[in-house]
């Protein structure tokens, strides 16, 4: 009897330990994952605006850093934010248009080189554009000599570069979706004399809306976080994107600008965090297919 009781206590204890260390381990990782986030929230509310001597719960917490953020003339955060949104929306809209056109051809038309074309698009896009940043810089410079509106330090030039990277995984994603749309509607439209473009515009695009939204936001997120090419092409303070602007803003000024930076970081991160949770399902399935978020 006593023997048995002893054993069950032992097992209970082993079980408890087993469960305890699992939770403990996970909590250690959660602390690792969250402490920068918690700390940056605390910094944004700390009117001291300096990283040194920062406390977890800031004394005299206030929103003054958020106010300072939008008042700085030297560092026009509001303009950077608008620039970024403008670039993201224009790029994402054009990318959706360009890639859905191409995906329609790959899904609905049969032509020589279709398979190798699909393969080639994927292969070419395996090379990140930033590898050719020097050439891109020189090309945009040359372009600007003739068409100043597309030259260095213009948003149109930057969008042009981004559009170069539009084809690729997006075309595959859209083609996959278009393939699942039944062809019966198009066939009857075809009999009524509709052109392929009319079918694409009036039938396929409306039916494909869910995937178009996904591609739009995936591109939005990618453009939002793009740093290298924006850094290479843009120069004027009022032209910068948030990524480039924040980098120039904080560069080695942590002692003086930490609080304002924290406020900017929170505002800057918010749209992407929201989009992430909104798109989570697609992101995760995209991830397991090999796409890596930048």
């Amino acid at each position, binding site marked *: 009897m006593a023997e048995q009781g002893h054993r069950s206590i032992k097992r209970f204890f082993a079980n408890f330990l087993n469960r305890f260390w699992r939770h403990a381990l*996970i909590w250690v990782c959660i602390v690792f994952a969250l402490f920068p986030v918690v700390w940056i929230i605390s910094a944004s509310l700390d009117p001291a605006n300096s990283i040194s001597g920062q406390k977890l719960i800031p004394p005299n917490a206030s929103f003054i850093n958020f106010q300072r953020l939008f008042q700085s003339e030297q560092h026009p955060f509001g303009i950077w934010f608008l620039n970024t949104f403008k670039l993201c929306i224009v790029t994402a809209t054009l990318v959706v248009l360009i890639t859905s056109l*191409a995906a329609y051809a790959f899904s609905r038309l049969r032509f020589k080189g279709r398979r190798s074309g699909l393969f080639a698009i994927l292969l070419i896009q*395996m090379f990140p554009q930033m*590898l050719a*940043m020097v050439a891109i810089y020189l090309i945009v410079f040359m372009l600007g000599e003739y068409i100043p509106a597309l030259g260095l330090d213009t948003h149109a030039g930057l969008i042009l570069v981004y559009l170069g990277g539009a084809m690729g995984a997006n075309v595959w994603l859209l083609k996959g979706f278009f393939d699942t749309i039944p062809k019966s509607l198009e066939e009857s439209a075809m009999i009524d004399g509709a052109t392929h473009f009319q079918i694409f515009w009036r039938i396929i695009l409306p039916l494909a809306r869910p995937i178009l939204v996904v591609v739009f936001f995936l591109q939005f997120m990618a453009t939002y976080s793009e740093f290298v090419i924006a850094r290479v092409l843009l120069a004027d303070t009022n032209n910068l994107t948030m990524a480039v602007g924040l980098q120039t803003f904080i560069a080695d000024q942590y002692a003086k600008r930490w609080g304002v*930076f924290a406020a900017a970081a929170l505002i800057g991160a918010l749209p992407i965090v929201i989009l992430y949770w909104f798109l989570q399902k697609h992101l995760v399935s995209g991830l397991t297919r090999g796409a*890596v978020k*930048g």
Partner: protein
Amino acid sequence: MKKAAHSTDTYNTNHAGRQPVKAGLMITKIILLGLLNALALWAIPILWGDSQWILLGVLVIATAGIDYAFLSKKALPLRFMLPGLLFMMIMVIFPIGYTVYVAFTNFGTGHILTKAQAVDQYTHRYLLQENLPVYTPEYYTDNAGQFAVLLTDPDGRQFVGYEQTLYSLAESPLELVDEDGDGVFDKIGNLGRLGGLEVFSYLGQFEKLVFQYDDHLDNRTDVYLKMRSMDQFASYVPQFEYSAASDTLTDLEDGTAYRVLDGSFVSDSGETLDVGFRTTVGWRNFTSLLTNKRIAGPFWQVFSWTIVWAILSVVTTFALGLLLAVLLNDAKLKLRGLYRVLLIIPYTLPAFISALIWRGMFNTEVGLINNVLGMSIPWLQDPFWAKVALIIVNLWLGFPYMMIISLGALQSIPTDLYEAATVDGASGWHQFWKITFPLLLVSLAPLLIASFAFNFNNFSVIYLVTEGRPAIAGALTPTGATDILITYTYRLAFEGGSGGRYGLASAVSILIFLIVGTISWFNFRFTGALEEVNDNG
């Protein structure tokens, strides 16, 4: 096969042009194409005149492609792919080709101009002649790009400088008018006189004016009058003379000849003139990466760290991600959903913001980490600690991704394998290493390789956290101990100070192309992306 035949049918049925709408569309199409071609035809001579062969080629190919796509009936699929293909051609394929070209040139600071531009610059350099008289100027303009200067010499003689030539008042091609009779000319032709402050808005244009002496003035033909300061024009002689026959620049002052060598003008005694021009230099950029001690040493350091960095990034993030995935995969674990959400948070923030936050945290003097540890580790100043900091930052950024994909892969492992193993008496530890891990590795290998390729070029993390620093001592180009190849490329080309080595930077880019290309090709075989195309028909 059947499906294909059917589709071909359907797009041949609609070229009969049944509706009037189509005629209208056709006309619009032709007008638009006409405009496009007119634009191209207008641009071609301009580009030709400037010797912009590359832009010219791109323009011709793009225009021809658009014409073909919209005029040929067979090109229907091309019409749909055209926008994407054009952008891809201009901003992906062409830059790759251009990178290769630049890698074989000396393109960079000091070698930006073409040879013709460089020669032009030298032949427009002038030396001040102190012994010749100076002139007091009055400025005239018609506000439409025409400029003239009235010059008075110390003896009170007056001259008109107009369109690169100096005229005496009697010979002036433009009439001088003194409207109010105060002895000051108010107009030269229709160019009005500029009062004191008005000159400032045209200073840039007036500075560029050069007037050649007419031979009878001082019996010299090679003297030029140029603005020396706003109230003084002085005499200058050209500093260089270029001879196309011998391809040399001669310094007219001392007669030194400068010959062309590798895109620079070099004298016999080895002196090099400041402005060079761009030219092809063969494999020199590549060989200097291997043989020039002050480039090759740092370069190999960067190269090996890039590989160590990419491997460590994958291994650390995968290890932590997998550990968490295994812990969270237990259905009996309480709070599982909450844990998962909390652990994914680092992945949901934009990487550029997280990297900048971590840079603050690692600050040696005021950063949180040294504060909490009560130490003063030189996180961003010491090469070793800077690397540790980067690995920690990347672990934070990357482990949630590895956790997500590992969780997915764990769920696809059939449970009967474990049941069989349990019956055979295998321990949990044993089961993990003998069943779970090998199966995971097989299904995740392509993603791990992709992650390796991604981190190999992870510019944002390196540049935003350390900017590649601390610097490697003795390096000829700005190079740091934590630079990876892609940040090294960036700094070669764009970092202030000694940046601007586009040729060398492109050579490094090509190297990265080759490495990433090999990895991607390997990965393609792994994932069997080709078969996927075939499956989908």
